[in-house]
């Protein structure tokens, strides 16, 4: 039969996974093509692996799934036929590759994950069975309505698949996505991963006041933030269980505050040595208010010293006594109702003692109370 139709031109096809059907497109001008024939050869063995005719008016040929094998290079040629039976010549051969679909996903993120910080370092994972290299990739961040908020640069280094995205707002929903391409043009897409951002920003205990002004029709607010300065003699201190332990050291708070007039000091402490452990001083004043632990006659006391011009006021407060209680937590008492207590003949000091020092109207008071350590 004479070749009367123009020769079609097969469009370049990126690499694809032969486990799925694939559509080859071609361009052609001339009489309406009603069917086309595709011939595929293995580029290495020149073996004819596919030769079929498909009917249709569209300028494409659908290769069924599982026709070819992964990791191979092939050549395709196409010819067209019109309704009268005329045909074209086979097109120029076009080379294409088949590869197994790569694995391309976020290894440290999953759909609907909760992110608890304002930034996130994403980690991409890429692998391909036939070792097809990754050519380029890019990260995208979308808002709740899938509008694009951020796109990274295009990266070409397949050995570094991490990227940090900053600026996540609390109580917000984002979508994370990465796209890429292999060396032979396979398109990669992680899809949209929903990220729910909920990070625990620390509620601050500060002076922040808001007020309504009815006569002016506005709201006012003011802040009173204090940053207290402090210093230590050395680094002999450690933190554990919400406590700080000092050894051969002194902690001094000495900036951004000044106590005048009445005050209350509440100090919770344990394992105090038998010496002065607490001082309150004024600048340019030789006197100080102090507390120290001491043992007198086998009993343990806290001594508060408050100077006046001619000497010192001294208060002694006995360390709190442990009281006995039954299994139900009810205090045991004598027949006359006096609680039975254990005198502190030793000072193991594993339990917290709360020292409450007050100055009110110029008069001082010291109270010691006892707090059991929580199990």
């Amino acid at each position, binding site marked *: 039969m004479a070749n009367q139709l123009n020769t079609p031109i097969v469009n370049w096809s990126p690499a694809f996974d032969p486990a799925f059907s694939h559509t080859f497109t071609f361009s052609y001008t001339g009489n309406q093509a009603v069917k086309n024939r595709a011939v595929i050869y293995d580029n290495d063995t020149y073996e004819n692996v596919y030769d079929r005719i498909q009917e249709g008016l569209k300028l494409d040929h659908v290769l069924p799934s599982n026709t070819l094998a992964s990791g191979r290079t092939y050549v395709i040629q196409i010819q067209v036929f019109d309704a009268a039976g005329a045909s074209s010549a086979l097109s120029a051969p076009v080379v294409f590759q088949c590869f197994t679909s790569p694995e391309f996903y976020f290894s440290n993120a999953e759909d609907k994950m909760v992110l608890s910080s*304002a930034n996130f370092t994403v980690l991409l994972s890429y692998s391909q069975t036939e070792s097809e290299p990754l050519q380029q990739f890019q990260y995208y961040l979308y808002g709740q309505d899938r509008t694009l908020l951020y796109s990274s640069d295009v990266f070409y280094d397949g050995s570094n698949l991490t990227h940090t995205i900053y600026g996540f*707002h*609390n109580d917000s929903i984002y979508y994370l996505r990465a796209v890429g391409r292999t060396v032979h043009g396979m398109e990669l897409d992680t899809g949209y991963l929903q990220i729910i951002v909920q990070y625990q*920003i620390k*509620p*601050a*205990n*500060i002076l*922040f006041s*808001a007020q*309504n002004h*009815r006569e002016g*029709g*506005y*709201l*006012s*607010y*003011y802040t*009173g*933030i*204090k*940053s*207290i300065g*402090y210093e230590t003699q050395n680094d002999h*201190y450690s933190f554990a269980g*919400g*406590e*700080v332990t000092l050894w051969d050291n*002194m*902690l001094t*708070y*000495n900036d*951004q505050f*000044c*106590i*005048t007039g009445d*005050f*209350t000091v*509440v*100090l*919770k*402490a344990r394992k105090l*040595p038998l010496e002065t*452990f*607490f*001082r309150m*001083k*004024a*600048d340019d*004043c030789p*006197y100080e*208010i102090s507390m120290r632990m001491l043992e007198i006659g086998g009993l343990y006391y806290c001594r508060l010293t*408050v*100077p*006046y011009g*001619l000497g010192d006021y001294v208060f002694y407060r006995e360390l709190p006594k442990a009281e006995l209680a039954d299994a139900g937590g009810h205090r045991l008492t004598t027949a006359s109702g006096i609680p039975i207590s254990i005198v502190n003949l030793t000072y193991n000091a594993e339990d917290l003692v709360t020292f409450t020092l007050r*100055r*009110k109207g*110029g008069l001082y008071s010291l109270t010691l*109370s006892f707090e059991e350590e929580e199990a």
Partner: protein
Amino acid sequence: MIFLGTTFFSGKYTLSPLNANIDGISQIQMTDGTYDHLFISANPEKGPANIHDEWDEHTVLNADFNDNLEAGNSGFSLKNTDTMVIKIREKGTMDWKTIETKRVKNVEDFNFYGIYRFARNNTDYELMLLSTIAGIENSYVVREVRSEFDGMYLIGNDGLFGTVYDLDGCDTTRNTTASIVNLLNNRYASVYSNGISNYDSGSVTGTFLKLDPDSGLADEAGGIGLRREFIDFLCNQKPKVLKLFDGRIWLVRITDTPSDTQNGHPDLRQITFSWAEIGDVNSVKDLYQNGLTDVTSEWW
């Protein structure tokens, strides 16, 4: 017995020396030991039950020794804050709006005072003070406040005027574009909208008086100056926010010419002005573009 103002040492404490009053205490020292909490307040009524209370104006220092030695307002420091942000939202809603930002370079910058003029009447608001560094939020504190006012307020970036006297109902009109076309072959009309206009407009009438703050009586001379300033304000061609006692609020420009008319007495003058809505009063972007807020785009 008290004779000539003295008890001759017969009182219980008359031989006691005077109390010392070491004032201006500015150093607190603690030596070896294990400390769980240090709390100091200028209120002598506080006690151990108050050490976890919120910071108030009497609190001097409060150290919980929870992995640090900080004794000031926890969470806000020069180490973790370069900008303080104030946000607001109506209680029960989700979206916060930024109303003020302040760069922090030294400790004094942490203390500031601000006002928010665009709160609706009879509405509960939550205000949040937030510390951020490099755009990342860290510590915050939230306070609730109820906005209440009377009358009408018109707020611009260069002034605020209001009145509670003889206000009319501030009737409004919702303006949209719609054209009615009668077709020859249809009993019913066809309506077409060739635009997306959808805004409110209206007019406000109120009596503007100036009252003497001492006597509470009308200040006639002051009232003339007040009304003239108000009309100058209306005619300055700048965007404003109009809010009413019934909770309505709009971002507006004044349209038409304001009028100043007598209301039954020579000293009672009513001013009437018309307005049209020019943006979304709840949008920080619209407020910024109309010069009513300084909050820039990175905080929207």
